[in-house]
């Protein structure tokens, strides 16, 4: 019995956990299963989800990106600065925000892939640098965004009943799922996490792929940052506060990605995101104080990893 659980927990653990938790929460508070609430869950996880999708690729190569929080803020500020500071149309502003994210990602990627700095330290350092830079550029204040139709649409608009951010999340998930399965980039990311040396000896550029992976991650954080900006109608260097990256990593880990690299999939991260949303929402509904939810998340990450380690040991 124990071995049966052990062998299959990798594949079945997540759906089972989801079902069990939904059941518990519904019993505690029937309002949990309402359409409104489920809609709310999606909306709450959309931004985390977008970043988690891209973080999956980073984790698949055995790396990590802790700098996504400040990148969110930076992108939001960058877009705001271009839009309200110049005559350029909104599209340019948004593109500039994406560029800011990509630039940070490129710096991370270069340092990690070429200079061989450890990802954890590099992105930890960038976290500080980007945050400081954002504060320098935009100050600690909130900058109001008023009367901007595109922003309003992005932030409050709904298409077919779902908020724009949710659509972005779903579309990006589908796109990156396709990238993972159908592009050489996707195969490379997975192979590098498995055996980077073998990939190098096969004549492929590991550094290029690793660099790209961080650039994507930065772009993902930029997208989330600009959406956040539009949702709250402000741009600020203080957004993406501490805890953001934890949510993202928790979602990826819950989805079953091994932090040692190699295994991981966009689809599983998607479900991990949903599971995290369910947990967050359930805790809210049960009136667990917001700050204590941090504790719960810590426990979740440890538990998920310990379980996957246990399952791993079964296979070897």
């Amino acid at each position, binding site marked *: 019995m124990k071995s049966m659980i052990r062998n299959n927990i990798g594949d079945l653990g997540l759906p089972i956990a989801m079902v069990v938790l939904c059941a518990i929460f519904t019993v505690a508070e029937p309002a949990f299963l309402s359409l409104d609430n489920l809609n709310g869950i999606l909306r709450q996880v959309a931004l985390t989800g977008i970043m988690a999708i891209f973080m999956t690729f980073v984790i698949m190569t055995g790396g990590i990106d802790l700098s996504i929080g400040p990148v969110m803020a930076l992108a939001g500020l960058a877009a705001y600065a271009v839009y309200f500071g110049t005559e350029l149309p909104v599209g340019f502003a948004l593109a500039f925000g994406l560029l800011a994210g990509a630039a940070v990602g490129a710096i991370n990627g270069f340092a990690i892939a070429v*200079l061989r700095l*450890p990802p*954890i330290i590099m992105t930890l350092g960038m*976290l*500080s*640098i980007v945050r400081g830079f954002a504060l*320098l550029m935009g100050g600690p204040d909130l900058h109001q965004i008023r009367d901007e139709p595109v922003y309003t649409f992005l932030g409050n608009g709904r298409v077919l009943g779902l908020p724009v951010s949710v659509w972005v999340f779903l579309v990006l998930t589908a796109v990156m799922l396709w990238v993972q399965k159908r592009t050489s980039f996707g195969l490379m990311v997975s192979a590098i996490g498995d055996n980077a040396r073998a990939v190098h000896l096969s004549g492929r550029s590991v550094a290029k792929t690793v660099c790209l992976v961080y650039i994507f991650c930065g772009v993902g954080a930029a997208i989330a940052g600009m959406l956040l900006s539009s949702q709250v109608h402000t741009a600020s260097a203080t957004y993406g506060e501490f805890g953001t990256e934890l949510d993202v990593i928790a979602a990826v880990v819950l989805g079953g990605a091994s932090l040692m690299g190699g295994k991981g999939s966009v689809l599983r991260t998607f479900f991990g995101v949903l599971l995290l949303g369910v947990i967050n929402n359930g805790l809210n509904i049960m009136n667990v104080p917001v700050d204590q939810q*941090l504790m719960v998340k810590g426990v979740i990450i*440890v538990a998920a*990893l310990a379980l996957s380690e246990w399952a791993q040991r079964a296979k070897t």
Partner: protein
Amino acid sequence: MPNKLFKHIPNAGLIFFFVLLTSFFCLFANNFSTSMNAENILAGYSFIAIIALGQMFPITARGIDLSTGSIVALAGMVIYDCMLIFELSGWVSIGLGILAATLAGALNGILIVRFNLQPFVATLATLAGYRGLVYAISGRQLYPELATTPLRDPAVKALNEFYDIGSWTGLDQFFQTPWIPVSFFVLLGVMIALFVLLTLSPYGTALKATGGNYEAARLAGLPVRTITISAYAMSGLLAGIGAVLLVSRLTTSTESLGIGMELTAIAAAVIGGTRLQGGKGNVLGPVLGAFLLGIILVGLTLMGISQFVQQMLTGGILLAAVGYDSFRTRKQA
């Protein structure tokens, strides 16, 4: 010739930078070379030096501790609660705070050893977990009316004292000597204790061996798992001591205490020459690293440079130190 010099005096390069930067700021920053500023730096960075010394242990064991800031907050809040809610005596509260921090550190170690988690993940998770715990036990939230009450216990006051060493030793006849804060003496005491532990006792070699070549250490019969756990417990312990000093200085503790402190501690330790691949560590390095950071940040403030630039610089210095460390390792390989 310079190479030999660097080899024989540990941290020679660091001391050189230290002197260089101090001179720079004395020349270019207003009020830098005043005794008041020296007091500020000593009071403000002694506890960071202690926490950096703590961070040296897991790094030497080839790991890392990202939860230091949360452990500081945890210790702080335990002290706060004990003094204001349970009205325990100052020294007892302080003892409990340090105990809590040590246990938190030990738990980090246990998670890493028992569940085979990578150090950065385990301590990332506990960074969240312990911070949440701080909120959960926060006296300020449970009894909001206490939020503005400062800690008035005599122990706290004692720790916040400054001593006029200058007049005792008669040095103040030559120049205006700064008054030395208690926290600096605590730092000195910690340094001496750690020196004995790391250099004179078998523990130091055992720790470096565990980090430098885990398999060899294991084969030599060393209890590598226990040593690993102890490294994280030490990190917690020293974070706790640092927290005590910080709380005394602030005469209060908040839920957001210590956020980001792990970055500063890691930066100080790495600048101080602790190699990230483990196996090496000395007592003077992290202290020099911490004060070096302190001098830079305070100096820049006095020169009128925005604190945001300073935040960038802390990150930048960390990366430069790590980059240099990585470069040197690859050159040797």
